[in-house]
Structure formats: C-alpha cells, structure tokens
C-alpha cells in the first residue's frame, strides 16, 4: 500500500477545486451569474480555449496526487514488520507515463530518433569505430532501422491519429445525440452543428476537440516506442518534462492570484467603505508596495526565503517536498507583492457602491458595518476579482519563466517552462543545435498562455460590459 503524500501545493489545489465546485453551485442558483457564464461560452474562442485549458487542468490534477511506493520487505523479514517507503515521491502522472520515465537514454537525441546525437566509439564486427550509437529504448524494436524507421513512424502516427479522430467523432456523435431532441433527430442536430446553427458555438468547440485528438492521438501512438520531443542532456524524455511543467505553470498561475485575493479584497473594501484614515493607511501601504519595481521586490523576498529554508532543513523530508515548499512560498510572495492593482480597483468600486441606495437602506435598518461589507459590498465587487484573476493567470505563467531565468523562480530540480528555456539557452549554441527542448517548451507554453488569454478575454467581455465594444468584428458583407 503506497503512502499518500500531501504536498502544500496539492492541498491548496484540492481546496481550489472545492471552491470551484462551490462556485459552480453558485452559478446554478444565481441567474445573473449563469447568464454571464453562458455569454462566455457563446464566444467561440473562449469556449474552445476553455476546452484546451480543461485538458491542461486534467494533466495538473493527475500530477497533483502524490504518493511514495512501499518497498518490498526484505527476504526473511517476519510478517508485520514496519514497511519502508521509497524516498522518491511519485504522482499519478508519473504512473501513467512510467514508460517514458523508464525509457531513459544516455544523452541528447533528436525527436523520433533511433540514434544518439553525438558520435561515440562503438565496436562493430570486432573493430573500433566512431559512429552514432543506437538508443537504448527508442526504436529498439526495429531490427533494420534504416529501412524500417520511416514506415514504422508513419504507421504508428497514422494509427494514433486515426484513433484520435475516432474519439473526436464519438464525442461529436454524443453531442449530436444529446441535442437530437431539441433539434429534431440526430441527423438534423449534426447538420445544425456543421452549419453553426447551435445555441453554443459547438462547431468551433468540436473542431478544437478534433485537432486536440488528432495531435494527441499521434503523440500517444508514437510515445510508447520513440521520444516524440527528443531527450535532454541526461537522456530524459522532453515530452514528460513538458507535461510535468504544466503543473508548475498552473500552480503559479492560480495560487499566486488566489494569494493576492485576501489582501486585495479585504483591504480594498475596508478602504473604500470607511474612507478617512483607514483609507489613507491602506493607500499608503499599496503605494509603498507598488513603488518598488516588481522583480526586485520578489527577488528580495525570494532571497530571504532561500536563507530561511537553508536554516530550517527539518521542514521537509524529501527533495520534492523542499522544492514544493519553495514554489508554495514563491506563490505567497507573488501574492503579498501583487495585491496593489486589484486593491485599487476594489477600493474605487466600493467608494461608488457605498453611496448606492441599497447600502443606505441597510445602514438605515441598523445593519452592522461588518455585515454591510460582507453581504452587500463584497458580492458586488466579485466581478472585478474574477476578471483580474483570469487575466493575471497568463501573465503569471509568463512571469514564472522570467523569474526562473533571473534565478528567483522555482527550484531548479522542479520541472518548469522557465527551467526548460533556461537550459535551452545554452543548448541553442551547441553544434548541432539542440532545438527540441526549446520547441517543446515553446509549443506547450504558447498553447497554454494563448488559451488562458482567449478565455480571459471572453470572461472580461461577459462580465465587463464596457470591454465588449472593443472586440474586433468584421461584417461579412464588408469583407
């Protein structure tokens, strides 16, 4: 029985999942919220982006269940002795990708290659010769790689892609079947989807699903026997690293914004509601905070955290727990230093709200300050919180890369996009160029950030009526 390990970030991610479920229930019961979220989903770009984001979230979830394997009891040990656990902490994602973890080569290799990148002295027919060595795992099943390789790769990729397309087709059929009652039969429903006559932009959504399934299918088809994105300097699979980096990006993107919320909302509402000296003090606090260039402030805090962690080595048991504590503290720092913008917005909105009739009515009824703030003002600034949260998600993911490059980001032992880019810098100056780590980080990161941006735009347009008019749209008749 493996021992479940609860990391700090895991706990917070689970808590966030719970909060999300609660929010989902709020959407169900609150007509206003529901209408706004329907608006988000009616935006084709936002809906498609949401699907992509959901996939990344799934990867994150799978990578957030950690455990330590129980070691087999030594031979001859009496039954009932204490079981020992492996020193390395694994996650569900590691389990799913255990083949990729096991397929460790000895050095760089190109994507889909069956040979290593650098020549090594090899023994061929009893003679020593310098040549590219065969990889230990990738393409090991080929008996005559030179003639079989191309065919094998295409066959596996095609099989995977076909499988992916089948899945996509099944999803489309299922959607059609769900809609068949309102659209008069399955055929009519599918025709309506194809002609984009559905209530939600299902055509765009299903196209996204199809593209994801196509690419994902091909990758899945290949990844059992090849390194789809090559291997890095120590022979580790780059695809696996990129997938692990998704969690780091997600943790930073969500945790760091959530960490800003308590300060921003509480202080913002207090400042706007009480005005006077409370307002002055809070304004002074956030002006002071925002007057220090952000990177410097974060760097200063992270340096201190490093010193603190070095002094207290008994706070964590394994290496993973240490790097996890570090990323958790990084998020807290990002939260502590980043609440000024949202606080300013919330304060402004509260200043407006406190003069409105319903607040005056509540005051006239003798409702206490605390209750007015929590019941009447806080819910009415939540749209600002939502918009800021989704908008800053993508910024933070980009920021993580910069911070890691500067040397104040996540632990080097933790997979992250910033770390991959950082290594890519020296790899790009090698000869021959090692471009695949960089390309993989680029592909994953752009997809994630782009999806987050498109989704955020959709949310902002739905919740902030003023922003909607800036959407570019061209009329077919003109174009």
């Amino acid at each position, binding site marked *: 029985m493996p021992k479940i390990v609860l990391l700090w970030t895991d706990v917070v991610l689970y808590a966030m999942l719970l909060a999300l479920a609660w929010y989902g229930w709020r959407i169900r019961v609150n007509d206003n919220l529901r209408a706004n979220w329907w608006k988000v989903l009616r935006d084709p770009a936002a809906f498609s982006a949401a699907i992509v984001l959901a996939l990344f979230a799934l990867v994150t979830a799978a990578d957030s269940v950690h455990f330590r394997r129980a070691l087999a009891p030594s031979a001859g040990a009496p039954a009932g002795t204490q079981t020992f656990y492996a020193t390395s902490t694994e996650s569900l994602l590691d389990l799913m990708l255990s083949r990729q973890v096991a397929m460790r080569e000895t050095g760089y290799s190109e994507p889909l290659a069956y040979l290593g990148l650098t020549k090594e002295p090899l023994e061929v027919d009893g003679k020593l010769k310098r040549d590219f060595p065969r990889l230990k795992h990738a393409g090991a099943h080929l008996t005559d790689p030179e003639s079989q390789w191309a065919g094998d790769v295409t066959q596996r990729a095609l099989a995977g892609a076909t499988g992916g397309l089948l899945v996509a087709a099944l999803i489309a059929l299922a959607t059609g079947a769900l809609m068949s009652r309102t659209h008069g039969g399955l055929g009519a429903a599918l025709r309506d989807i194809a002609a984009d006559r559905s209530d939600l932009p299902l055509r765009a959504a299903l196209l996204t699903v199809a593209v994801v399934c196509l690419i994902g299918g091909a990758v899945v088809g290949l990844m059992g026997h090849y390194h789809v994105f090559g291997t890095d300097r120590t022979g580790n699979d780059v695809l696996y690293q990129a997938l692990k980096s998704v969690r780091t990006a997600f943790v930073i993107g969500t945790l760091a914004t959530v960490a800003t919320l308590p300060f921003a909302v509480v202080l913002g509402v207090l400042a706007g509601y009480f005005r006077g000296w409370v307002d002055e003090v809070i304004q*002074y606090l956030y*002006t*002071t905070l*925002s*007057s*220090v*260039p952000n*990177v*410097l*402030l974060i*760097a*200063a*805090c992270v*340096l*201190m955290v*490093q*010193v*603190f962690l070095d002094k207290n080595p008994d706070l964590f048991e394994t290496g993973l727990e240490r790097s996890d504590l570090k990323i958790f503290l990084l998020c807290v720092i990002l939260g502590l230093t980043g609440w000024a913008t949202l606080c300013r917005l919330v304060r402004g909105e509260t200043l407006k709200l406190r003069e409105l009739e319903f607040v005056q009515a509540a005051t006239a009824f003798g409702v206490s300050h605390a209750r007015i703030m929590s019941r009447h003002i806080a819910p009415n600034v939540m749209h600002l919180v939502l918009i800021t949260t989704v908008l800053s998600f*993508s910024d933070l993911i*980009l920021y993580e*890369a*910069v911070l890691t*490059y*500067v*040397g*104040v980001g996540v632990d080097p032992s933790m997979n992250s*996009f*910033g770390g991959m*880019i950082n290594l*890519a*810098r020296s790899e*790009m*100056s090698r000869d021959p*160029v090692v471009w695949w780590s*960089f390309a993989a980080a*680029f592909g994953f*990161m*752009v997809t994630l*950030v*782009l999806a987050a*941006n*498109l989704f955020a*735009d959709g949310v902002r347009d739905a919740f902030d009526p003023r*922003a909607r*008019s*800036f959407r*570019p*749209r*061209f*009329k077919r008749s*003109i*174009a």
Partner: protein
Amino acid sequence: MLNYLIRRIGYGVLILIGVNLFTFVLFFTVNTPDDMARLNIGGKRVTQDQIEKWKAERGYDKPLYWNKKEEGAAKLTKTIVWERSVSLFALQFGRSDARNAIDIGYEIKTRMGVSLQLALPLFILQVFASTAFALLLVFFRNSRIDFWGVVLCVLMLSISSLFYIIVGQYMFSRVLRLVPINGYAPGLDAVKFLILPILLSLLARLGGEARLYRAMFLEEIGKDYVRTARAKGLSEAVVLFRHVLKNALIPIITSAGSYLPYVFLGSLVFESFFGIPGLGAFVIEAITGQDFAIVRSMVFLGALLYIASYVIIDLTYTWADPRVRLS
C-alpha cells in the same frame, strides 16, 4: 503647482521611508549580520573573531534597531537601521557586502548610462510603434485588417519575451551573423550591440501595448466630439490624428509612464542575455551572489525613480490636457 509639488515630494519621502524600513526588516530579521559575515567570509570554519572583525569593518557591529548602551537620541541613531537609512537618503550607497566590496554608488553611476543607451531609444520607439500600430487597426476598424491585427496582438502577447530573445539571437547572430551575439562597447560601437536587444524588446511588448492603445482609441472614437468632427466633413485620417490621438494621450501617458523607472533601471532579462553591463545585469549579479547591500540600494533607487516618474507623469498631464490643474 508649487503646493502640489511640495505635497507630492513629502508623500514621496514618506513612501521611501516605508520602502526602506520594509526591506531592512525583511533582510535583517531573516539574515542577521552574523550570517552575512559567515556567508561572505566563506570557508568551513569561521571564528567569532573573524565575524566581529568583518562586522566592524562594514559597520555592522551595532544593534539593529535600538542601542541600549548609548544615551538620549544616540539610542536611536547609533544603530544599523539608522545609519544605513540615512546614508541611503543622502544617496550614499556605500560598499557591497561581497569580498571585493565594490563601490555601489560608482557602479550605479557608470552602469546607468549604459542602461539608458538601451532603454531610452527603446522607450521612445515603443511608444511610437505601439501608437502607430494601434492607429492603423483603429483606422481599419471592423475590417479584416483589424480582426487579424488583434489576433496577431494576442498571439504576440502570449509568447514569453525569452522566446523572442532566444530565437532572435539565434537567427540574427548565429545564422545570419548580422550582429554580435552579446557584449558591449562604449561610444558609437555600442549601436551594433544594442540594435538587436532594442528590436526584440520592442517586438516582445508590441502585442500587449498595441492592443491596449487600440482599446483606448476606440473608447475615444465613440464620443460626441468625434461625431461633430466628422459632421464638419473632416476626413477620417484628420479625425484620428488631430482629435482622437490628442484626447487619447492621457491614458497613453499613464501606461507608457509606468515604464519610466525601467528606462533608468534597465531590463533585467535583456541586459543579462545580451551581456550589456547595465543596472539590470548588476541586479542579477547581486541576486545570484546574494549581495544584500546592492539589492537594498537598487530597491531604494527603484522606488525613488518610481516616485519621480509619477511626478513627471502628472506634469505631462497638464501639458497634454490643459483642463488638468494640479493642486
């Protein structure tokens, strides 16, 4: 006006005191002078004598916040926090904690010039390029150009600046061999070292800025005075450049002005990637070397520049919009 300036500067001093206290508490409670001495002397076995000597040399041999041994006001002034803060306010940055003990003030003076060479042209080009691109999109609004222009903006702002740097360096320096990969030379030779970082930095920020400016222009374009201008029979170009551009200046100044501190502080990432010995690279060196004296000085300098740039922004408002009165 004078009244405004005095008040603003007074508030600025208050903020600087806050920043200074904050960084001091942050640094010195986690990392006591003894720890700093141990780190900087290095080696496995550091004797207490060595530590005391190091502390005496650097002026760290006093209590942090409150000196019980002294009398009267000296209780407060003969402390590390007082001495360090007063010297910062006098812009005496002192020497770094590291073994070579470089003169921070001298470094800042020489490096700021280098940072300016990179950041000032960038700043000006940035404002021009973003405004021009945004105006183009607004001129062709609700057309295909606008739509795909915005798509391009979103795509560009989704790409990390590090990607621009690595790809740009690879393309222009390694493959095309147009400019050196990194380095710096004073005088006119600096151009060939600086042109690539400037262009790449411009590109990295263009998407976000242009999209922001476009929204600002569109907000103005719906207003009554624009309709009046059109009703007078003015051409769309005149409306845009004479009327809309002028009125959208205020938000543009606000957004561009927030970059002003970085014009002096330089860009951390770009400077260290291209080996330009500016202030940004200085900070990175200090961070990797855990030199807290430098980091503290730079935080102080950054806050100072931030406050100064906000005064400048406010002054520019009065120039851009005569209705704005500072009082």
